[in-house]
């Protein structure tokens, strides 16, 4: 067998192994940095959320999920700028509470939306971070549910 080629192959193989290792290390660092960015992004969002008003909305009647909506276009604009800068468009505010900008059907303006599959957790989150929330729709929802049992408020 050609010994020169074998030697070259051994060296190239070693280089490739080192590169593979470096790629793995870089991928790990990148994941850590993105995780850190997610944390900072969430903190920034929560800070920004405190200056605007939110409306509570159940996801659908009789479902346990709910979301808080904010139509404030100044907030939406600021978040859009941040998202474009850092390349993150989805915020994880806690394990079961997420944030994103959404469009309403037929409305060209976006709105800010904090969503949770658990309405109680969302309420706790709003209280913990002193968010200004209008729970009118929650009361309406409760009225609708109670009317099923013959109670009319």
């Amino acid at each position, binding site marked *: 067998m050609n010994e020169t*080629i074998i030697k*070259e192959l051994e060296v*190239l*193989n070693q280089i*490739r192994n080192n590169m593979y290792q470096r790629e793995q290390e870089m991928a790990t660092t*990148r994941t850590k940095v993105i995780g850190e960015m997610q944390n*900072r992004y969430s*903190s920034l969002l929560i800070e*920004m959320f405190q200056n605007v008003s939110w409306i509570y909305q159940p996801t659908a009647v009789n479902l346990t999920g709910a979301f808080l909506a904010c139509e404030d276009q100044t907030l939406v604009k600021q978040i859009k700028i*941040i998202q474009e800068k850092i390349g993150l468009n989805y915020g994880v505010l806690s394990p079961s509470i997420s944030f994103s900008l959404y469009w309403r059907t037929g409305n060209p303006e976006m709105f800010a939306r904090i969503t949770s599959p658990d309405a109680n957790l969302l309420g706790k989150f709003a209280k913990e971070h002193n968010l200004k929330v209008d729970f009118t729709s929650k009361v309406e929802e409760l009225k609708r549910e109670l009317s099923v049992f013959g109670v009319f408020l």
Partner: protein
Amino acid sequence: MNKQEAIANELEVLNQIKASIMDRQQQTTATHSKVHQEILNRFKELMFDILPSYSWIFIDGHTKNYCYLACEDQRFVEQIRQMLHKFNVPESFMVDNNISFQGRCVNSIADNNVRGVRLFATDPKALIAFAEEYKLDVDYSNKTKHLKEELKLFGAYL
């Protein structure tokens, strides 16, 4: 500077770090790919040196859409297996535009159960030209047998 500005600044710095890591990742991946290709080229070179030392059998595919040269010499099979493993080369790869190498085949020759290697092609002319170029020791009797079968269809008996 308020809290929001401070966090926004941190985010910008982190974003720059992320961009720089991605840039380095892309460069490393490109170099990795080049090194891998270089390994494959060297491996082929090494393999071409060894191919003429062993005997090959020309096999026509049953569907006639493919053909291959098979080698069942277990010294070669084992040597190739070790080299593929040592240099982390895939078991199958393209030798050139028309021919692929298959480094681990059971039933390397139809109707037997022996592990072997194949040089595989869809165009018999390309495969024969390759065998001639690298001066391979090829047994074409199977092809002759096949040709005889085909000629029988036209009433010619050899």
